[in-house]
Protein backbone atom coordinates (compact mmCIF):
# COMPACT_ATOMS: atom_id res chain seq x y z
CA UNK A 1 0.00 0.00 0.00
CA UNK A 2 2.73 2.45 0.93
CA UNK A 3 4.69 1.42 -2.18
CA UNK A 4 1.64 2.43 -4.19
CA UNK A 5 1.52 5.84 -2.51
CA UNK A 6 5.17 6.46 -3.17
CA UNK A 7 4.64 5.61 -6.80
CA UNK A 8 1.68 7.98 -7.01
CA UNK A 9 3.75 10.73 -5.42
CA UNK A 10 6.61 10.11 -7.83
CA UNK A 11 4.26 10.29 -10.76
CA UNK A 12 2.82 13.59 -9.57
CA UNK A 13 6.27 15.01 -9.02
CA UNK A 14 7.34 13.93 -12.46
CA UNK A 15 4.28 15.45 -14.10
CA UNK A 16 4.86 18.70 -12.23
CA UNK A 17 8.49 18.78 -13.30
CA UNK A 18 7.65 18.22 -16.97
CA UNK A 19 4.92 20.86 -16.80
CA UNK A 20 7.24 23.37 -15.16
CA UNK A 21 9.97 22.77 -17.76
CA UNK A 22 7.45 23.21 -20.55
CA UNK A 23 6.32 26.54 -19.15
CA UNK A 24 9.94 27.56 -18.68
CA UNK A 25 10.71 26.73 -22.28
CA UNK A 26 7.92 28.86 -23.67
CA UNK A 27 8.26 31.76 -21.27
CA UNK A 28 10.88 33.59 -23.41
CA UNK A 29 8.44 33.55 -26.33
CA UNK A 30 5.75 35.26 -24.30
CA UNK A 31 8.25 37.62 -22.77
CA UNK A 32 9.49 38.65 -26.21
CA UNK A 33 5.97 39.25 -27.46
CA UNK A 34 5.09 41.16 -24.29
CA UNK A 35 8.16 43.39 -24.26
CA UNK A 36 7.99 44.11 -27.98
CA UNK A 37 4.35 45.18 -27.58
CA UNK A 38 5.02 47.13 -24.45
CA UNK A 39 7.99 49.07 -25.77
CA UNK A 40 6.88 49.37 -29.36
CA UNK A 41 3.32 50.50 -28.93
CA UNK A 42 4.26 53.94 -27.45
CA UNK A 43 6.42 54.81 -30.41
CA UNK A 44 3.80 53.81 -32.91
CA UNK A 45 0.97 55.55 -31.03
CA UNK A 46 2.90 58.79 -30.59
CA UNK A 47 3.90 59.02 -34.26
CA UNK A 48 0.77 57.46 -35.70
CA UNK A 49 0.79 57.02 -39.48
CA UNK A 50 4.12 58.81 -39.91
CA UNK A 51 5.81 55.80 -38.36
CA UNK A 52 4.42 53.53 -41.05
CA UNK A 53 4.80 55.83 -44.05
CA UNK A 54 7.54 58.30 -43.15
CA UNK A 55 11.19 58.17 -44.04
CA UNK A 56 13.79 57.72 -41.33
CA UNK A 57 14.38 61.51 -41.14
CA UNK A 58 10.63 62.02 -40.55
CA UNK A 59 10.77 59.45 -37.74
CA UNK A 60 9.21 56.66 -39.80
CA UNK A 61 10.22 53.29 -41.17
CA UNK A 62 8.20 53.40 -44.41
CA UNK A 63 11.05 52.47 -46.79
CA UNK A 64 11.95 49.50 -44.61
CA UNK A 65 8.36 48.20 -44.63
CA UNK A 66 8.10 48.60 -48.39
CA UNK A 67 11.56 47.05 -48.73
CA UNK A 68 10.53 44.00 -46.74
CA UNK A 69 7.42 43.56 -48.87
CA UNK A 70 9.41 43.93 -52.11
CA UNK A 71 12.03 41.45 -50.90
CA UNK A 72 9.49 38.90 -49.73
CA UNK A 73 7.45 39.24 -52.92
CA UNK A 74 10.48 38.85 -55.19
CA UNK A 75 11.88 36.00 -53.12
CA UNK A 76 8.52 34.22 -53.37
CA UNK A 77 8.35 34.83 -57.10
CA UNK A 78 11.77 33.25 -57.57
CA UNK A 79 11.68 30.60 -54.85
CA UNK A 80 8.13 29.25 -54.63
CA UNK A 81 7.73 27.70 -58.10
CA UNK A 82 11.14 26.04 -57.96
CA UNK A 83 10.68 24.79 -54.39
CA UNK A 84 7.21 23.44 -55.14
CA UNK A 85 8.46 21.47 -58.12
CA UNK A 86 11.45 20.15 -56.20
CA UNK A 87 9.14 18.98 -53.39
CA UNK A 88 6.85 17.22 -55.85
CA UNK A 89 9.86 15.66 -57.59
CA UNK A 90 11.23 14.29 -54.32
CA UNK A 91 7.80 12.78 -53.63
CA UNK A 92 7.25 11.33 -57.07
CA UNK A 93 10.71 9.87 -57.65
CA UNK A 94 11.91 8.87 -54.18
CA UNK A 95 13.93 5.91 -55.51
CA UNK A 96 15.89 7.80 -58.14
CA UNK A 97 19.43 8.88 -57.31
CA UNK A 98 18.54 12.53 -57.69
CA UNK A 99 15.38 12.05 -55.64
CA UNK A 100 17.31 10.48 -52.77
CA UNK A 101 19.96 13.18 -52.93
CA UNK A 102 17.28 15.87 -52.99
CA UNK A 103 15.93 14.78 -49.63
CA UNK A 104 19.33 14.89 -47.91
CA UNK A 105 20.31 18.12 -49.60
CA UNK A 106 17.07 19.79 -48.54
CA UNK A 107 17.82 18.88 -44.92
CA UNK A 108 21.28 20.43 -45.21
CA UNK A 109 19.94 23.56 -46.88
CA UNK A 110 17.31 23.88 -44.18
CA UNK A 111 19.98 24.15 -41.48
CA UNK A 112 22.55 26.03 -43.53
CA UNK A 113 24.03 29.16 -41.86
CA UNK A 114 22.07 31.98 -43.48
CA UNK A 115 24.94 34.44 -43.35
CA UNK A 116 26.87 32.23 -45.77
CA UNK A 117 24.01 32.62 -48.23
CA UNK A 118 24.46 36.38 -47.92
CA UNK A 119 28.21 36.10 -48.53
CA UNK A 120 27.60 33.88 -51.53
CA UNK A 121 25.12 36.27 -53.15
CA UNK A 122 27.41 39.19 -52.44
CA UNK A 123 30.17 37.45 -54.41
CA UNK A 124 27.89 36.31 -57.19
CA UNK A 125 25.72 39.36 -57.67
CA UNK A 126 26.59 42.41 -55.62
CA UNK A 127 30.26 42.56 -56.59
CA UNK A 128 29.70 42.07 -60.35
CA UNK A 129 26.77 44.50 -60.38
CA UNK A 130 28.72 47.01 -58.35
CA UNK A 131 25.72 47.80 -56.19
CA UNK A 132 23.53 46.41 -53.44
CA UNK A 133 20.10 45.62 -54.77
CA UNK A 134 16.63 44.32 -53.97
CA UNK A 135 17.32 41.54 -56.45
CA UNK A 136 20.39 40.36 -54.53
CA UNK A 137 18.48 40.40 -51.24
CA UNK A 138 15.52 38.59 -52.77
CA UNK A 139 17.78 35.91 -54.23
CA UNK A 140 19.39 35.18 -50.90
CA UNK A 141 15.97 35.08 -49.23
CA UNK A 142 14.73 32.76 -51.99
CA UNK A 143 17.61 30.38 -51.28
CA UNK A 144 16.65 30.33 -47.61
CA UNK A 145 12.93 29.97 -48.34
CA UNK A 146 13.16 27.16 -50.88
CA UNK A 147 14.11 24.24 -48.63
CA UNK A 148 11.24 25.07 -46.25
CA UNK A 149 8.68 25.11 -49.02
CA UNK A 150 10.13 22.03 -50.71
CA UNK A 151 10.23 20.01 -47.49
CA UNK A 152 6.67 20.99 -46.56
CA UNK A 153 5.45 20.20 -50.07
CA UNK A 154 7.16 16.83 -49.97
CA UNK A 155 5.71 16.04 -46.54
CA UNK A 156 2.22 17.16 -47.52
CA UNK A 157 2.31 14.93 -50.58
CA UNK A 158 3.66 12.00 -48.62
CA UNK A 159 0.78 12.20 -46.20
CA UNK A 160 -1.72 11.45 -48.93
CA UNK A 161 -2.78 7.85 -48.29
CA UNK A 162 -1.69 5.45 -50.98
CA UNK A 163 -5.28 4.55 -51.85
CA UNK A 164 -5.81 7.91 -53.50
CA UNK A 165 -2.74 7.48 -55.64
CA UNK A 166 -4.08 4.11 -56.73
CA UNK A 167 -7.44 5.67 -57.46
CA UNK A 168 -5.99 8.46 -59.57
CA UNK A 169 -3.88 6.11 -61.67
CA UNK A 170 -6.68 3.55 -61.99
CA UNK A 171 -8.70 6.17 -63.89
CA UNK A 172 -6.13 6.12 -66.65
CA UNK A 173 -4.63 9.47 -65.80
CA UNK A 174 -1.14 10.27 -66.96
CA UNK A 175 1.44 10.78 -64.25
CA UNK A 176 1.43 14.54 -64.76
CA UNK A 177 -2.36 14.74 -64.46
CA UNK A 178 -2.57 12.35 -61.52
CA UNK A 179 0.04 14.32 -59.63
CA UNK A 180 -0.82 17.90 -60.50
CA UNK A 181 -4.58 17.67 -60.98
CA UNK A 182 -5.52 15.19 -58.27
CA UNK A 183 -2.80 14.69 -55.66
CA UNK A 184 -1.43 18.24 -55.41
CA UNK A 185 -4.92 19.74 -54.90
CA UNK A 186 -5.47 17.08 -52.24
CA UNK A 187 -2.34 18.27 -50.41
CA UNK A 188 -2.90 21.95 -51.05
CA UNK A 189 -3.44 22.86 -47.43
CA UNK A 190 -0.14 21.35 -46.37
CA UNK A 191 1.65 22.93 -49.31
CA UNK A 192 0.13 26.33 -48.54
CA UNK A 193 1.27 25.96 -44.95
CA UNK A 194 4.81 25.41 -46.19
CA UNK A 195 4.57 28.44 -48.44
CA UNK A 196 3.41 30.67 -45.59
CA UNK A 197 6.01 29.31 -43.18
CA UNK A 198 8.69 29.94 -45.80
CA UNK A 199 7.44 33.50 -46.25
CA UNK A 200 7.23 34.13 -42.50
CA UNK A 201 10.74 32.76 -42.10
CA UNK A 202 12.35 35.04 -44.67
CA UNK A 203 10.33 38.11 -43.69
CA UNK A 204 12.29 38.12 -40.42
CA UNK A 205 15.74 37.21 -41.75
CA UNK A 206 18.61 39.65 -41.17
CA UNK A 207 21.89 37.90 -41.85
CA UNK A 208 21.41 37.22 -45.57
CA UNK A 209 20.52 40.88 -46.12
CA UNK A 210 23.60 42.32 -44.42
CA UNK A 211 25.78 42.22 -47.53
CA UNK A 212 23.10 42.25 -50.20
CA UNK A 213 20.37 44.89 -49.94
CA UNK A 214 22.37 47.89 -48.78
CA UNK A 215 19.68 49.33 -46.56
CA UNK A 216 17.97 52.44 -47.83
CA UNK A 217 15.76 54.27 -45.34
CA UNK A 218 15.72 57.88 -46.49
CA UNK A 219 14.19 57.36 -49.90
CA UNK A 220 11.66 55.07 -51.52
CA UNK A 221 13.55 53.19 -54.21
CA UNK A 222 11.98 52.11 -57.45
CA UNK A 223 13.56 49.26 -59.37
CA UNK A 224 14.90 45.91 -58.31
CA UNK A 225 18.51 46.79 -59.08
CA UNK A 226 18.59 49.57 -56.49
CA UNK A 227 19.39 49.15 -52.79
CA UNK A 228 16.37 48.76 -50.52
CA UNK A 229 15.75 48.58 -46.80
CA UNK A 230 14.23 45.82 -44.71
CA UNK A 231 12.69 45.91 -41.26
CA UNK A 232 14.98 43.38 -39.55
CA UNK A 233 18.05 45.02 -41.03
CA UNK A 234 16.82 48.42 -39.92
CA UNK A 235 16.35 47.14 -36.38
CA UNK A 236 19.91 45.84 -36.44
CA UNK A 237 21.21 49.20 -37.64
CA UNK A 238 19.16 51.26 -35.19
CA UNK A 239 20.17 49.20 -32.17
CA UNK A 240 23.84 49.82 -32.94
CA UNK A 241 23.30 53.57 -32.79
CA UNK A 242 24.02 55.25 -29.46
CA UNK A 243 20.95 57.52 -29.70
CA UNK A 244 18.01 56.72 -27.41
CA UNK A 245 15.65 57.96 -30.08
CA UNK A 246 16.94 55.28 -32.45
CA UNK A 247 16.42 52.58 -29.85
CA UNK A 248 12.80 53.62 -29.50
CA UNK A 249 12.32 53.41 -33.23
CA UNK A 250 13.87 49.95 -33.16
CA UNK A 251 11.18 48.85 -30.68
CA UNK A 252 8.49 50.27 -32.94
CA UNK A 253 9.99 48.52 -35.96
CA UNK A 254 10.18 45.29 -33.94
CA UNK A 255 6.48 45.53 -33.20
CA UNK A 256 5.69 46.02 -36.90
CA UNK A 257 7.83 42.99 -37.75
CA UNK A 258 6.12 40.95 -35.06
CA UNK A 259 2.70 41.94 -36.40
CA UNK A 260 3.69 40.97 -39.95
CA UNK A 261 5.00 37.64 -38.68
CA UNK A 262 1.88 36.91 -36.62
CA UNK A 263 -0.28 38.06 -39.52
CA UNK A 264 1.23 35.30 -41.62
CA UNK A 265 1.55 32.68 -38.91
CA UNK A 266 -1.80 32.80 -37.14
CA UNK A 267 -3.85 32.06 -40.27
CA UNK A 268 -1.56 29.09 -40.90
CA UNK A 269 -2.32 27.66 -37.48
CA UNK A 270 -6.04 28.31 -37.83
CA UNK A 271 -6.22 26.70 -41.24
CA UNK A 272 -4.39 23.64 -39.95
CA UNK A 273 -7.01 23.16 -37.30
CA UNK A 274 -9.84 22.84 -39.81
CA UNK A 275 -8.31 19.88 -41.59
CA UNK A 276 -10.94 17.23 -42.00
CA UNK A 277 -9.89 13.66 -42.49
Amino acid at each position, binding site marked *: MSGYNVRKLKEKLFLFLIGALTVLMFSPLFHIIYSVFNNGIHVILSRRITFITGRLSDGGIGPAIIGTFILVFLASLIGLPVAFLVGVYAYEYP*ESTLGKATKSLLQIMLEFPTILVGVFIMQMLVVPMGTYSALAGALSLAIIMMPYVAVYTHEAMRQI*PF*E*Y*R*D*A*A*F*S*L*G*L*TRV*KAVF*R*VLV*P*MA*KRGILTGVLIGIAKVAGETAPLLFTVGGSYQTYQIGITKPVGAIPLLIYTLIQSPAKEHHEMAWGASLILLLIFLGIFIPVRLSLREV*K*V
Partner: protein
Amino acid sequence: MIELALETRDLKVYYGNNMVIKGVNLKVPKNVVFALMGPSGCGKSTMLRAFNRLLELNSEARVEGEVRILGRNIYAPNVDPIEVRREVGMVFQYPNPFPHLTIYDNVAIGLKLNGLVRSKEELDKRVEWALKKAALWDEVKDRLDDYPSNLSGGQRQRLVIARALAMKPKILLMDEPTANIDPVGTKKIEELLFELKKKYTIILVTHSPAQAARVSDYVAFLYLGELIELGPTRKVFENPEHELTEQYVTGVLG
Protein backbone atom coordinates in the same frame (compact mmCIF):
# COMPACT_ATOMS: atom_id res chain seq x y z
CA MET B 1 -17.20 -20.90 -78.12
CA ILE B 2 -17.62 -18.40 -75.32
CA GLU B 3 -16.17 -14.95 -75.87
CA LEU B 4 -13.59 -14.18 -73.23
CA ALA B 5 -13.41 -10.91 -71.34
CA LEU B 6 -10.05 -11.72 -69.85
CA GLU B 7 -7.53 -14.49 -70.13
CA THR B 8 -4.17 -15.00 -68.51
CA ARG B 9 -1.42 -17.16 -69.97
CA ASP B 10 1.26 -18.36 -67.60
CA LEU B 11 0.98 -15.16 -65.57
CA LYS B 12 3.82 -14.70 -63.12
CA VAL B 13 4.37 -11.77 -60.79
CA TYR B 14 7.56 -11.13 -58.87
CA TYR B 15 8.28 -8.69 -56.07
CA GLY B 16 12.03 -8.38 -56.36
CA ASN B 17 13.20 -12.00 -56.57
CA ASN B 18 10.15 -13.31 -54.81
CA MET B 19 7.61 -15.00 -57.07
CA VAL B 20 4.11 -14.30 -55.72
CA ILE B 21 1.98 -15.40 -58.67
CA LYS B 22 3.32 -18.66 -59.97
CA GLY B 23 2.15 -19.13 -63.51
CA VAL B 24 -1.62 -18.77 -63.54
CA ASN B 25 -3.82 -19.63 -66.51
CA LEU B 26 -7.41 -18.57 -66.27
CA LYS B 27 -10.26 -17.58 -68.52
CA VAL B 28 -13.03 -15.17 -67.62
CA PRO B 29 -16.15 -15.21 -69.84
CA LYS B 30 -18.03 -12.00 -70.62
CA ASN B 31 -20.84 -10.65 -68.47
CA VAL B 32 -20.25 -12.70 -65.38
CA VAL B 33 -19.14 -12.07 -61.85
CA PHE B 34 -15.85 -13.89 -61.55
CA ALA B 35 -14.59 -14.32 -57.99
CA LEU B 36 -10.94 -14.71 -57.08
CA MET B 37 -10.98 -16.19 -53.62
CA GLY B 38 -8.31 -17.33 -51.25
CA PRO B 39 -6.85 -16.62 -47.86
CA SER B 40 -5.07 -13.35 -47.10
CA GLY B 41 -1.67 -13.03 -48.70
CA CYS B 42 -2.30 -15.59 -51.44
CA GLY B 43 -1.79 -13.04 -54.20
CA LYS B 44 -5.37 -12.18 -55.14
CA SER B 45 -4.94 -8.43 -54.96
CA THR B 46 -1.59 -8.61 -56.70
CA MET B 47 -3.14 -10.57 -59.53
CA LEU B 48 -6.01 -8.09 -59.82
CA ARG B 49 -3.52 -5.24 -60.09
CA ALA B 50 -1.79 -7.06 -62.90
CA PHE B 51 -5.08 -6.90 -64.84
CA ASN B 52 -4.94 -3.11 -65.24
CA ARG B 53 -1.16 -2.69 -64.93
CA LEU B 54 -1.64 -0.74 -61.71
CA LEU B 55 1.05 -3.03 -60.33
CA GLU B 56 3.55 -0.90 -62.19
CA LEU B 57 3.19 1.85 -59.58
CA ASN B 58 5.24 -0.47 -57.40
CA SER B 59 8.77 -0.38 -58.78
CA GLU B 60 9.55 -3.71 -57.11
CA ALA B 61 6.90 -5.59 -59.05
CA ARG B 62 7.60 -7.42 -62.31
CA VAL B 63 5.11 -9.27 -64.51
CA GLU B 64 5.74 -12.15 -66.89
CA GLY B 65 3.31 -13.95 -69.16
CA GLU B 66 0.22 -12.54 -70.80
CA VAL B 67 -3.00 -10.91 -69.73
CA ARG B 68 -5.44 -10.70 -72.61
CA ILE B 69 -8.36 -8.36 -72.38
CA LEU B 70 -10.90 -9.02 -75.10
CA GLY B 71 -8.16 -10.88 -76.91
CA ARG B 72 -5.45 -8.23 -76.73
CA ASN B 73 -2.34 -8.85 -74.63
CA ILE B 74 -2.02 -5.77 -72.42
CA TYR B 75 1.63 -6.59 -71.73
CA ALA B 76 2.57 -6.43 -75.41
CA PRO B 77 5.34 -3.87 -75.92
CA ASN B 78 3.22 -1.41 -77.90
CA VAL B 79 0.44 -1.16 -75.30
CA ASP B 80 0.15 2.03 -73.25
CA PRO B 81 -0.73 1.26 -69.60
CA ILE B 82 -2.69 4.52 -69.43
CA GLU B 83 -5.01 3.23 -72.18
CA VAL B 84 -5.42 -0.09 -70.37
CA ARG B 85 -6.46 1.63 -67.14
CA ARG B 86 -9.07 3.69 -68.96
CA GLU B 87 -10.67 0.50 -70.21
CA VAL B 88 -10.48 -1.43 -66.97
CA GLY B 89 -12.24 0.15 -63.99
CA MET B 90 -11.15 -0.53 -60.44
CA VAL B 91 -12.80 -0.45 -57.04
CA PHE B 92 -10.66 -0.77 -53.94
CA GLN B 93 -10.72 -2.44 -50.58
CA TYR B 94 -10.93 0.86 -48.76
CA PRO B 95 -13.56 3.23 -50.19
CA ASN B 96 -11.40 5.99 -51.64
CA PRO B 97 -13.43 8.77 -53.22
CA PHE B 98 -11.23 11.88 -53.46
CA PRO B 99 -11.94 13.76 -50.22
CA HIS B 100 -11.28 17.21 -51.68
CA LEU B 101 -13.76 16.80 -54.52
CA THR B 102 -17.54 17.00 -54.43
CA ILE B 103 -19.68 13.95 -55.14
CA TYR B 104 -20.26 15.27 -58.65
CA ASP B 105 -16.58 15.94 -59.31
CA ASN B 106 -15.57 12.54 -58.00
CA VAL B 107 -17.61 10.92 -60.74
CA ALA B 108 -16.67 13.52 -63.34
CA ILE B 109 -12.92 13.72 -62.77
CA GLY B 110 -11.84 10.79 -64.92
CA LEU B 111 -13.97 12.02 -67.81
CA LYS B 112 -12.82 15.60 -67.42
CA LEU B 113 -9.10 14.98 -67.10
CA ASN B 114 -9.07 12.39 -69.87
CA GLY B 115 -11.10 14.69 -72.13
CA LEU B 116 -13.75 12.06 -72.76
CA VAL B 117 -16.74 14.39 -72.89
CA ARG B 118 -17.35 17.30 -75.18
CA SER B 119 -19.77 19.48 -73.23
CA LYS B 120 -21.03 20.25 -69.76
CA GLU B 121 -24.41 18.72 -70.67
CA GLU B 122 -22.77 15.50 -71.76
CA LEU B 123 -20.79 15.44 -68.53
CA ASP B 124 -23.93 16.07 -66.43
CA LYS B 125 -25.68 13.24 -68.23
CA ARG B 126 -22.81 10.84 -67.82
CA VAL B 127 -22.46 11.62 -64.10
CA GLU B 128 -26.17 11.03 -63.56
CA TRP B 129 -26.01 7.84 -65.59
CA ALA B 130 -23.04 6.51 -63.62
CA LEU B 131 -24.60 7.37 -60.27
CA LYS B 132 -27.82 5.63 -61.33
CA LYS B 133 -25.86 2.58 -62.47
CA ALA B 134 -24.15 2.49 -59.08
CA ALA B 135 -27.56 2.74 -57.35
CA LEU B 136 -26.53 5.93 -55.61
CA TRP B 137 -28.39 8.60 -57.59
CA ASP B 138 -31.53 8.67 -55.43
CA GLU B 139 -29.46 9.16 -52.30
CA VAL B 140 -27.23 11.96 -53.58
CA LYS B 141 -29.12 13.71 -56.38
CA ASP B 142 -29.99 16.66 -54.12
CA ARG B 143 -26.49 17.08 -52.78
CA LEU B 144 -24.07 16.59 -55.64
CA ASP B 145 -22.02 19.52 -54.31
CA ASP B 146 -21.58 17.86 -50.96
CA TYR B 147 -18.33 16.10 -50.04
CA PRO B 148 -17.87 12.34 -49.71
CA SER B 149 -16.92 12.70 -46.03
CA ASN B 150 -20.66 13.11 -45.38
CA LEU B 151 -21.51 9.77 -46.96
CA SER B 152 -21.63 6.40 -45.25
CA GLY B 153 -18.96 3.80 -46.01
CA GLY B 154 -21.31 1.89 -48.29
CA GLN B 155 -22.32 5.06 -50.13
CA ARG B 156 -18.68 6.03 -50.58
CA GLN B 157 -17.94 2.66 -52.09
CA ARG B 158 -20.86 3.02 -54.51
CA LEU B 159 -19.50 6.47 -55.36
CA VAL B 160 -16.20 4.82 -56.25
CA ILE B 161 -18.10 2.31 -58.37
CA ALA B 162 -19.82 5.23 -60.13
CA ARG B 163 -16.43 6.90 -60.66
CA ALA B 164 -15.19 3.73 -62.36
CA LEU B 165 -18.39 3.18 -64.38
CA ALA B 166 -18.39 6.75 -65.69
CA MET B 167 -15.35 5.82 -67.76
CA LYS B 168 -17.46 3.08 -69.44
CA PRO B 169 -14.90 0.38 -68.74
CA LYS B 170 -14.92 -2.99 -70.44
CA ILE B 171 -14.11 -4.81 -67.24
CA LEU B 172 -14.61 -3.85 -63.61
CA LEU B 173 -12.06 -5.04 -61.08
CA MET B 174 -13.13 -5.08 -57.45
CA ASP B 175 -10.62 -5.68 -54.69
CA GLU B 176 -12.60 -6.86 -51.64
CA PRO B 177 -15.06 -4.01 -52.14
CA THR B 178 -17.07 -4.86 -49.03
CA ALA B 179 -14.20 -5.59 -46.63
CA ASN B 180 -14.69 -2.28 -44.83
CA ILE B 181 -18.45 -1.90 -45.27
CA ASP B 182 -21.23 -2.66 -42.80
CA PRO B 183 -23.66 -5.56 -43.57
CA VAL B 184 -26.41 -3.30 -44.96
CA GLY B 185 -23.97 -1.57 -47.29
CA THR B 186 -22.49 -4.90 -48.26
CA LYS B 187 -25.89 -6.25 -49.24
CA LYS B 188 -26.53 -3.23 -51.47
CA ILE B 189 -23.21 -3.61 -53.21
CA GLU B 190 -23.75 -7.33 -53.73
CA GLU B 191 -27.18 -6.65 -55.23
CA LEU B 192 -25.58 -4.09 -57.47
CA LEU B 193 -23.25 -6.75 -58.86
CA PHE B 194 -26.23 -8.67 -60.27
CA GLU B 195 -27.35 -5.56 -62.11
CA LEU B 196 -23.89 -4.63 -63.34
CA LYS B 197 -22.99 -7.99 -64.79
CA LYS B 198 -25.67 -7.56 -67.46
CA LYS B 199 -23.41 -4.97 -69.06
CA TYR B 200 -19.99 -5.55 -67.57
CA THR B 201 -17.63 -8.31 -66.65
CA ILE B 202 -16.75 -8.11 -63.00
CA ILE B 203 -13.69 -9.66 -61.43
CA LEU B 204 -14.10 -9.66 -57.69
CA VAL B 205 -11.45 -10.45 -55.14
CA THR B 206 -12.76 -11.78 -51.85
CA HIS B 207 -11.33 -13.63 -48.90
CA SER B 208 -14.81 -14.78 -47.95
CA PRO B 209 -15.93 -18.05 -49.58
CA ALA B 210 -19.46 -17.17 -48.47
CA GLN B 211 -19.41 -13.99 -50.51
CA ALA B 212 -17.99 -15.79 -53.52
CA ALA B 213 -20.79 -18.33 -53.23
CA ARG B 214 -23.47 -15.61 -52.96
CA VAL B 215 -22.48 -13.39 -55.84
CA SER B 216 -20.27 -15.12 -58.37
CA ASP B 217 -20.92 -17.21 -61.47
CA TYR B 218 -17.37 -18.50 -61.70
CA VAL B 219 -14.81 -18.83 -59.01
CA ALA B 220 -11.07 -19.32 -58.92
CA PHE B 221 -9.39 -20.53 -55.77
CA LEU B 222 -5.92 -19.13 -55.30
CA TYR B 223 -3.54 -20.48 -52.69
CA LEU B 224 0.02 -19.23 -52.11
CA GLY B 225 0.21 -17.77 -55.59
CA GLU B 226 -1.05 -20.82 -57.39
CA LEU B 227 -4.38 -21.42 -59.02
CA ILE B 228 -5.76 -24.47 -57.25
CA GLU B 229 -9.16 -24.73 -58.81
CA LEU B 230 -11.38 -22.90 -61.27
CA GLY B 231 -14.93 -23.49 -62.39
CA PRO B 232 -18.59 -22.55 -62.17
CA THR B 233 -19.23 -21.40 -58.60
CA ARG B 234 -21.83 -24.06 -57.88
CA LYS B 235 -19.61 -26.85 -58.98
CA VAL B 236 -16.56 -25.62 -57.07
CA PHE B 237 -18.55 -25.29 -53.88
CA GLU B 238 -20.63 -28.45 -54.13
CA ASN B 239 -18.19 -30.76 -55.74
CA PRO B 240 -14.61 -29.46 -55.50
CA GLU B 241 -11.95 -31.47 -57.25
CA HIS B 242 -9.11 -30.46 -55.03
CA GLU B 243 -8.84 -31.24 -51.38
CA LEU B 244 -7.47 -27.77 -50.54
CA THR B 245 -10.52 -26.19 -52.14
CA GLU B 246 -12.83 -28.34 -50.09
CA GLN B 247 -10.97 -27.42 -46.93
CA TYR B 248 -11.18 -23.76 -47.84
CA VAL B 249 -14.88 -23.60 -48.73
CA THR B 250 -15.87 -25.61 -45.70
CA GLY B 251 -13.81 -23.38 -43.43
CA VAL B 252 -11.25 -25.95 -42.34
CA LEU B 253 -8.56 -23.90 -44.03
CA GLY B 254 -8.44 -20.25 -43.03
